[in-house]
């Protein structure tokens, strides 16, 4: 069928985003909704190679230091003002460095950012940083209207409540606790686009309710964790729905058991290896995540640049685990307990809770007794970031490039108390630090790959964390809609080319 204008799409959003100003908040739901309102300079395909967005073309100098972007010329903000390089400069030099921690780190690498004309922007780096090209996706560097924010208190700007972007959809109405209504941007710079007239994001707090809503056709799309893994198999059978796990290549999360190296006997890599051997990650994937995901071989997600496919993942081996513990001198006591550890599952839903329960039982088999601790999100963040834990579960996004999303977990200069998603384990290996630092500024792809391969081998032997799965998120989309998941950004895309099949 040919794309035709018209139609309304209902998408689940859960939890409800706190706000839609993407520069100020980058929670998952915010990205999914605001990704239709705001835009970045680039977007990325499934291989994570850049695609044009607000920038229609770009060049990188051979020394890897100068990035020049050409902007589309007829782009307008939702309030009718033209989008120019002034807005890019404002966003990348003032707004984002002030409020967006990832962008702050990326643009801090620039020696200068300049705009030779209204539609050209030039980034000059202090030293080579090949990952820089992957820092321009809508959530990493959303473009913010300078005319509304220049010279204001960004966080308390009244415009935050009425986001103005350049995207194909505009915010019409937000009934808190109920739905967010986006309407077609009639002045979108690509003629004829978007196709859809309306997008409703519906807040449905209960997981079972979400599955039913999808099934009954009340909503057309779910993403990320909206559908609990056990519902996935059933929903896959529903005739009216398409199922995919694509579109998450950019975030590419890897989950793991985060281990506090400051606590004995967790500081001993034999102990961590024993844990690795004690658990059956296939079981975890199949029975807890219901087949969603792949066993992670090491720190890199296989879709992240620099992944080394030659690494063999650990396999369950209770004898090896016991041998390692014996070697450490941890003998079972009368009850068969060699050591007791506290596990605080991530409070992000029931699946993680189930995982905690599974781990408790598995580790019991090798003589490690586990006490489960429970927290809520706030308590969890506080305790993990302040190193007040023994073992927890966690996952992070890799943002396409090891320099953007992997190294932060393992390098020792990122051991920062009070900061979440840093090296909260307290793992420190000079070799690893060195390899990550060198690889980040290596322009030669082959050399870079070699360094990344080596760092992966070192890490897999050190087991700073016990990797679990390369996580996959299920996306269900009603078969009525086409062109939905097209890039590595997936559901956070602008949906400019999504269209409704004529019945």
């Amino acid at each position: 069928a040919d794309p035709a204008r018209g139609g309304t799409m209902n998408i689940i959003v859960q939890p409800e985003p706190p706000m839609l100003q993407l520069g100020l908040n980058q929670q998952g739901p915010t990205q999914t909704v605001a990704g239709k309102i705001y835009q970045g300079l680039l977007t990325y395909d499934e291989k994570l190679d850049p695609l044009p967005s607000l920038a229609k073309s770009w060049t990188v100098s051979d020394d890897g230091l100068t990035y020049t972007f050409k902007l589309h010329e007829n782009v307008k903000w939702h309030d009718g003002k033209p989008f120019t390089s002034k807005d890019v400069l404002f966003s990348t030099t003032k707004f984002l460095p002030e409020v967006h921690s990832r962008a702050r780190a990326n643009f801090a690498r620039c020696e200068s950012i300049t705009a030779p004309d209204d539609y050209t922007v030039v980034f000059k780096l202090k030293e080579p940083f090949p990952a820089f090209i992957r820092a321009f996706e809508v959530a990493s560097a959303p473009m913010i209207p300078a005319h509304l924010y220049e010279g204001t208190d960004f966080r308390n700007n009244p415009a935050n409540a009425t986001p103005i972007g350049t995207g194909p959809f505009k915010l019409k109405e937000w009934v808190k606790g109920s739905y967010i209504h986006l309407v077609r941007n009639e002045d979108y710079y690509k003629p004829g686009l978007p196709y859809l007239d309306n997008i409703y994001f519906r807040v449905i707090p209960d997981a079972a309710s979400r599955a039913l809503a999808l099934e009954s056709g009340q909503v057309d799309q779910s993403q990320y964790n909206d559908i609990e893994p056990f519902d996935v198999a059933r929903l896959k059978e529903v005739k009216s729905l398409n199922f995919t796990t694509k579109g998450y290549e950019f975030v590419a999360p890897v989950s793991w058991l985060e281990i506090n190296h400051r606590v004995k006997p967790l500081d001993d890599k034999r102990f961590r290896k024993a844990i690795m051997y004690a658990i059956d990650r296939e079981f975890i994937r199949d029975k807890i995540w219901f087949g969603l995901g792949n066993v992670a071989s090491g720190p890199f997600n296989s879709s992240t640049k620099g992944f080394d496919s030659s690494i063999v993942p650990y396999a369950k081996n209770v004898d090896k685990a016991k041998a390692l513990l014996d070697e450490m001198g941890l003998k079972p006591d009368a009850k068969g307990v060699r050591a007791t550890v506290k596990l605080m599952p991530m409070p992000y839903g029931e699946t993680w809770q189930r995982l905690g329960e599974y781990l408790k039982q598995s580790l019991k088999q090798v003589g490690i007794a586990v006490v489960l601790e429970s927290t809520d999100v706030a308590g969890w963040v506080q305790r993990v970031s302040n190193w007040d834990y023994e073992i927890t579960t966690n996952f992070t996004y890799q943002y396409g490039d090891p320099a953007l999303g992997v190294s932060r977990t393992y390098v020792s200069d990122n051991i920062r108390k009070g900061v979440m998603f840093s090296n909260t384990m307290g793992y420190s290996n000079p070799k690893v630090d060195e390899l990550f630092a060198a690889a980040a500024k290596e322009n030669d792809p082959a050399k870079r790959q070699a360094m990344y391969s080596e760092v992966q081998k070192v890490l897999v032997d050190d087991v700073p964390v016990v990797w679990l799965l390369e996580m996959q998120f299920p996306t269900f989309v009603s078969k009525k809609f086409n062109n939905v998941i097209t890039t590595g950004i997936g559901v956070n895309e602008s949906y400019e080319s999504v269209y409704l099949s004529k019945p």
Partner: protein
Amino acid sequence: MAGLVPFLAGRMVKAVVILFAIVVLNFLLVHAAPGDPAMVMAGEAGAADAKFVEQLREQFGLNKPLHEQLMTYVGTVAQGDLGFSYRQQRPVWDLIADRLPATLMLTLSAFVVALVGGILLGTLAAINSGKWSDSAITVVALLAYATPIYWVGLMLILLFSVSLGWLPAFGFETVGAGLTGLDRLGDILAHLVLPVFTLGLFYMAVYARMTRASILEVRDMDFVKTARAKGLRESRIVFGHILRNAILPVITVAGVQGGHLIGGSILVETVFAWPGIGRLAFDAVLQRDYQVLLGIFFVSSVMVIVFNILTDLVYTLVDPRIEVAK
């Protein structure tokens, strides 16, 4: 009711004192928890550096000493301002006001259904006491009383939405249907049926049991004998004499529970994705959105107090012995 004004004034003073105590108590309680909203936002953003968290703290006023925060908070509440949710970037009152109608609609409907249904069923059971209809009502009431409310909700969804497809299962209205006027009302009512029934069922059971017990108590009283001695019809004795007296304790309990329905609706709002205050409260707990949480506590306490005052007023209407004021 000449005494109404001083009565209300007295109650107001008392209410203010209680509310003040509640504000302080809640504030301290909530702040006793580990973690703060800045932490949560940092956690949910997926990446955060120290500057980010610091900025948030400063913006939320979390870097000030606790007693100062308390003073500030009490001060603003005294001015009728429930504060600002930085997390949600909106004034707390706006957030609550958005959700309040849905919750009120749910809880008040459930309340009315429960009260009317409960009193009717209880009366029916009491006047047929010892017969099968009494036993049936008693058993059903007991079951409703003993079943977890969320379980009832899930079962109803399974039956009426999934299997039979008669009623919508989630939300407040059909989103984007563009309905207006009566159609919209009908749509909302259809959405209301299951949650109201779920929430109301439990309370209906409570009131039915209370009414029954109360009638059995009252029907042995002397004045009922007097009414019989007058040669009145049984129906007149039941409705004109017994029920009116028997209903007093039900009113008292209902008055207390009416105010507490907001709390009870958390579960129902979760199961039915009802965009109400209970759900807002639960989310606020998890997100440590202090300002919102305190606001909800405040509003629901006010509800309880209002309900109590209303109960007392109703009581004086029904029972001439209680005088509003001297």
